[in-house]
């Protein structure tokens, strides 16, 4: 007899607590949605976000510090000359490897490499994930 009573007591308790829970969800039903319809709506990225790098080639002195500090060696730097006279031929960052740890930006003595707000990394090939910053800067200069 007691087992039967417990059985029905459990059912009543379950229905009661579910109703309480539904009360919480009902409250949210009439409030503003918190989700973003992502590809159409872009999230607001705060300042200091660690996204894809930006590189100022004219400031770079080819000191190689960013290449050395990188934990995963994803930066390739090729140059001629030294210091302010250095000519940078290649500054590639491989985003299939990059940890976005910000160490390269912190170690830079001339503050020429920063992390930007761009976070969209999807691409069709692996080669597209390697961004040639020096080449892009050269193209920009020509234009």
């Amino acid at each position, binding site marked *: 007899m007691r087992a039967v009573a417990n059985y029905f007591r*459990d059912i009543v308790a379950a229905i009661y*607590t*579910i109703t309480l829970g539904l009360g*919480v*969800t009902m409250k949210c039903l009439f409030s503003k949605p918190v989700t973003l319809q992502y590809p159409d709506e872009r999230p607001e990225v*705060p300042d200091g*976000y660690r996204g894809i790098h930006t590189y100022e080639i004219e400031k770079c002195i080819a000191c190689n510090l960013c290449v050395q500090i990188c934990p995963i060696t994803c930066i390739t730097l090729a140059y001629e000359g030294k210091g302010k006279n250095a000519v940078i031929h290649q500054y590639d960052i491989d985003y299939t490897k990059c940890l*976005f740890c910000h*160490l390269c930006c912190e170690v830079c003595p001339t503050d020429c490499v920063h*992390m930007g707000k761009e976070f969209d990394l999807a691409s069709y090939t692996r080669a597209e994930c390697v961004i040639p910053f020096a080449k892009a800067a050269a193209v920009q200069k020509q234009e």
Partner: protein
Amino acid sequence: MQDFLQTEEILVNMGPQHPSTHGVLRLVIRTDGEMVRETYTHIGYLHRCAEKIGENLTYKQFVPYTDRLDYLASINNNLGFCLAVENLAQIEVPERAAYLRVMGAEMNRIASHLVSYGTLGMEAGAFTPFFYGFREREQLVAIIEKMCGARLTYHYARLGGVMRDITPEIARDTREFVRTMEQRWEEYNTLLSFNEIFIKRTANVGIIPRDMAIGYGLTGPCLRGSGVEWDLRKDDPYSLYERFAFTVPYGDGRMGTVGDSWDRYWVRMVEIKESLKIITQVLDGLPEGPIMGKVPRVLKLPVGEAYMRVENPRGELGFYLVSDGGTKPYRLRIRGPSFCNLSIMNALGRECLVADVVMILGSIDVVLGEVDR
């Protein structure tokens, strides 16, 4: 009857790509109908040789790797490694940096427990808590994003201090979050904690007695759920934790037996509230000063060894460092709480229902990134 029916036990693979396994964990379950006779855990699908990588990198370079151990509690991991190195190198951390580290670690603890709350609810069949947990987590992650620029792998605690100082805007947002979270906490309990069906699914399921918990080397909410009062933040304080007032929750068998799944779940829920208290205290008493100590550009540690342990959301995370005087550690060993906590799975997952295995695993709350390392 049994001879007539010719029943036999069946081995069932749960995982490595099962939604209830919290990552790439494979459980081999010997089932007799709906009853589980034995559970075997198979790990190693996410092994990345983190310790060996650490031995080939300088101390500064390894800090971002610690983010990827328990990826739900990156700041806690950073903190553990940084403290180990700082201990050995005798680097002094400014007071403000220590406070900010505590704040970051507690925010990360809440974020981690919110994931645990959501996923445990989902494993019990309730989808709503998952969304609710992630709604608040999003608010928190947005604040941490302003603090350090990342959303998951924070790399916030650095050798000698922290990455960036907080702005008045971050402080304001954090206070607002604390206020919101206190209200939401009550809602969470109405939604899940005291739901009769959830209680029936978790109470008296996967009971870990006190001695067994200690014997298996459990730490964190799993240990405290069994009624053992052991929290490194109280018992072996680090990073100025002794200055903050908070209580350590532990399981008391409120809904069933001491050490059941509900107790472990409840310890996490109460910890969220305690972490909110710590965050408020940090913001109230944040001292002025630098956020970075003096760290040499080329960091060479003296010959010796150091072991540092911190209280992660999942338990005791330890870093054992041996230095031979060079720029890289001679040996690095990581004691992951999830790995030790998972070892009890074989003992708990027997003579129970298949659905209980899911609840037990959910209540232990492992992160496979740390189990496999």
